[in-house]
């Protein structure tokens, strides 16, 4: 129960005042990070109007309701403009869930523990890389849990994408054209492993012999036939200014070849609107972008819980909307009490087709909630909104060590200019014994070496 002095306009006034004063501190009633450190719950940091959709809409939208074209105006300020348009004009619907206040349900358990344990120890070195207080690579968790600048938010995101030490995501990708038809369907896998800042997998915090690397990451495809075996391996130097080295297996060539490192703004596959640069809204080395700036903060609607479809044997999601009912994922969203909006420019990529990106972060734990990129003329180009969840729906549960698995569940990427929409989901498995999961020590040898690329390649 909060005092009524926090009326419906209090939050709005608070965010405006903070912005005007140039003060960036998450939390309205108290610093969010203090609330989390106290008991892992953010309820004390925000007034009622930011903790329930009923409070925000004065009861006109309730938990369990759908947001649709008829009522989306009530939450227009909680959506990026692209998602608002999709709901208003393209038949997209969002089911509202209760706001999650227990932050331990919003990220991997070990990551949150490390964030609390290591708070205050991170800094940028002279080269712009995040280092520990001893000057060595970061040791795990979010280095800037109480971010004061845009680059701190992006630094944390770039350091750890999936917030696990290693992850493998079995993917299904559907590309929907402007007529609403699924024209391209792909199956594939995405693997990522952190040799530094490790919080779950031994050895911690560094993988001996690999501490000069930030990340190993690969992506490959198993269907359709023409792209089966197409795979790319990125090896990221820890230096946040250096480009990852890129190796690829092209099925026609039957061998692994080196690729230029700056190929980060090319569609990975025909029909899709996904670039390597788009990964986790922070797909490029931190210092290849710049002019990071916080441009706003306030409540937001995003899918961060209850989006896992554990009732489907392969965790597949259903779709709706668009001309043929295939354009958008069925999903739930909840009121995020505070999101931070950050812009950045790809100054290290003078030929990139985009001029900037605008990314929404959850102020409580700095998880990315959505992104819009802009073309070189400054017009909105593509929008991304993802969903996360604990893989625990009360009936079904997937464990990650001692705790339920937490991860993303699906992403919607829309090319606003062409009308194409790419739907991507994390599924339980794709053909060939590729199963989603985290912190499996086999991930490195199975997916993240040149030998692995050859093994995954078509013959």
């Amino acid at each position, binding site marked *: 129960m909060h005092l009524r002095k926090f009326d419906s306009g209090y939050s709005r006034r608070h965010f405006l005042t903070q912005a005007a004063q140039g003060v960036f501190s998450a939390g309205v009633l108290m610093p969010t990070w203090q609330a989390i450190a106290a008991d892992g719950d953010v309820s004390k940091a925000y007034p009622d109007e930011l903790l329930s959709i009923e409070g925000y809409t004065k009861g006109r939208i309730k938990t369990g309701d759908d947001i649709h074209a008829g009522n989306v105006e009530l939450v227009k300020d909680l959506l990026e403009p692209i998602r608002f348009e999709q709901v208003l004009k393209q038949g997209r619907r969002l089911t509202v869930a209760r706001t999650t206040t227990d932050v331990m349900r919003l990220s991997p358990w070990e990551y949150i523990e490390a964030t609390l344990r290591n708070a205050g120890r991170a800094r940028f070195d002279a080269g712009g890389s995040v280092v520990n207080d001893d000057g060595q690579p970061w040791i795990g968790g979010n280095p800037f849990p109480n971010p004061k600048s845009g680059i701190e938010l992006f630094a944390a995101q770039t350091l750890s994408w999936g917030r696990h030490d290693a992850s493998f995501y079995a993917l299904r990708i559907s590309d929907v054209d402007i007529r609403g038809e699924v024209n391209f369907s792909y199956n594939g896998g995405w693997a990522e492993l952190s040799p530094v800042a490790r919080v779950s997998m031994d050895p911690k915090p560094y993988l001996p012999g690999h501490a000069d690397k930030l990340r190993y990451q690969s992506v490959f495809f*198993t269907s359709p036939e023409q792209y089966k075996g197409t795979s790319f391996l990125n090896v990221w130097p820890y230096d946040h200014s250096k480009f990852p080295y890129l190796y690829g297996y092209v099925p026609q060539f039957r061998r692994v070849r080196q690729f230029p490192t700056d190929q980060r703004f090319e569609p990975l596959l025909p029909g899709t609107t996904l670039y390597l640069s788009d990964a986790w809204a922070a797909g490029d080395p931190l210092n290849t972008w710049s002019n990071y700036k916080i441009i706003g903060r306030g409540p937001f609607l995003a899918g961060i819980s209850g989006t896992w479809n554990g009732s489907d044997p392969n965790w597949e999601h259903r779709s709706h909307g668009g001309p043929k009912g295939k354009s958008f994922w069925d999903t739930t969203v909840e009121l995020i009490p505070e999101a931070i909006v950050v812009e950045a420019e790809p100054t290290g990529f003078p030929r990139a087709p985009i001029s900037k990106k605008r990314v929404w972060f959850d102020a409580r734990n700095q998880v990315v909630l959505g992104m819009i990129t802009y073309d070189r003329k400054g017009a909105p180009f593509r929008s991304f909104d993802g969903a996360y969840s604990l893989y625990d729906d009360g009936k079904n549960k997937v464990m990650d060590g001692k705790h339920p698995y937490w991860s993303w569940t699906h992403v919607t990427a829309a090319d606003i200019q062409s009308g194409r929409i790419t739907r991507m989901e994390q599924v339980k498995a794709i*053909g060939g014994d590729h199963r989603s999961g985290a912190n499996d020590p086999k991930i490195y040898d199975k997916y993240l070496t040149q030998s692995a690329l050859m093994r995954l390649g078509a013959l």
Partner: protein
Amino acid sequence: MKRNFKQICTATLAAAAMTASAPALAQAQISAKVLGGDFSLNGLVRLEMGIKTTSEQNQYNQGSYEFNGVGIARAPGNPLTGWNSTLWPSGQIIPGLPISIPLPSAGLLSDVSYRGNVPNESATMTSHALRLEVSPALTWGDFSIVSRIRALYDPGGMGYADFDARDYQSVNGGISGGHPALYHGSPNYYGYRVDGYGDRSPIPLEWSGRNYMVDFPALFLQYNNGPMTVRVGNQSVAWGQAIFFRVFDTANGLDLRRKLILDRALEEYADERMSALGIRIGYQLNELVHLDAFGQQFVPSILPNPNSPYNVIPSQFTAHDRYKEGGWDDKLNYGLRVKGEFGQFSLQAMAMSRYNPMGSFRWSKSGVDKALPNTNALGLLFNQVCNVVYMTSTPGCGQILAQTPFEVAPAGVFSAEEWFFYAHEVRLDALEALNTAISDFPEAGKLFAVPVDNMQAANNQLDAFFFAGEGLHGHIERVYRRENVFGLGGTYLTEAEPGSVFDQIIINLEVSYTPERSFAYSGFKDLRQELLTSDEVMAALVVEKYHRFSQGFPATYLVGQYLYRSESDLVDRHLSGYGGTPGSVPAPNCLTCPGQQPQAPKGVNGAHYLAFAALQPFPDYIWELSAAVLIDVRGGVLVQPNAKWKPRGNFTLDLYYNYLSGNAWGSNRNNNLISTIDHADELGVRIGYQF
């Protein structure tokens, strides 16, 4: 012919319509639990066609020989003068007209040949096939069975100009030498046949015949244990950064029977690289270094069959592949590569012991016991000599000819001029090839055949036997020899101003050294029994770049490559056989005979090839334009523009055009590689549906 072409167009449109209207698969891959493992299945169905765009025909096929219907004066030589004179003055041709002005007594001891009246045929298609490929895989944890099955069917006809040996059965006993499946009927589009193995393919896991083939480009058991991967079964091995130029990519031969190398160039050898039974072990020694070792059954490259659209061996010659008879199917290739990636740099080194998959061709006894025809004076005379002097047990000279590389048969070589033309065309020395056919087969001497040292004598001798035989088929055999290949390569990735032209260029150099190498012809430029060898150095320089020329389009892929080969061309023909010219040798007593003397090959010093390719995807990658160019610096050019359309995930349309010129510049088309295949200007069409 028009009706056939119409049929093809109709079939094409129907296939395209069916494919385009097929509903998109909700999800492409088929997955299921099978035998406790994870089963997955992908595949594609594709209609593939090559439509000729010029009237130029394959000069190595019977229906389109240079000499069909062309009157060639033949003046058989006199063996008593060491073949330095003719028995009778030659006839004279009126240029442009297929008639001759016979000299007195001509016909008995000289004549004008029209190649046995083998008619000219004009093909309008180079290929039309239906392809099915499926890739089932079954995985149990660290073990998996990986496979790819490829099936093709080409109905034949429909725009082909098929020669059929059965049409000549009544002429001098027909064609009886060679493998029946290859030489005794109509063209065999897909069957790979070797001597001594019946009518079946010698390659394990391949079933092929005249109109079909089914094989497993991949079928192996894979075991993965940490950094180690072991594959046991049928598989291919590809090494190196260079594309198309095979400096490191030497583990497997090429299957050239379907499209030679003239399918979509940017796919490199995806459909050509052979597979072989064996074991391959990959080991990631550490983050930087990867080891790759293999041991495989030796499997040779497969050449197009006689009279098939892309055939490259003149069909007057009968090739005996000794792969099975010589025991080479029991031989092993093996090799090791070490590759290190050091960020901006990479290094690789390899050593391989292999049998050269191209093999070496050399003269072979024909084994055909068939007398010279008694329907001409010389044939009758030779037969009498054989029966009376050598007391052969079968009529005429058949027993003796069987011990030489020659067979009396219709649609063979009819004149010395034809011999000179084709020998130099395929980069042989016509004179030396003749001499080794005689000197290495002593029985030839019984027919007064002797090595000679000048074109005149060669001309006279050849005309004598072609006259007597009313055309002869030459028999050659394909044998194989082990060689050791050592390679060293490095890659450097440039770093410059981001986005600039000089940023992110991949520069790669690969060099190989093969000591004591044998080549496509046993004697380099002749077909002697002994396999000559020499050391060969190959070097490929590759420069690659992805560059965004505009904000609206994805990056353009650009690659330039240079290849140097010290001894041989891209298909292992020794460069000493380059530079011969066609021509006719007038009889010494024929003052007005037309023609230009054929010139023996002078050879060329090193082969130099350039390749350029560019690929420009359109936004969303629905369209893709590309072009590839191969240049032999001595005057040969292959240009291939290509358009690919992918309107949806399961449907692809490919259009490409092959423009070839064997005499783009330079004075002698036999000085470059491309002239061998420059008949193959075509429009390629591929309509595919994949799942």
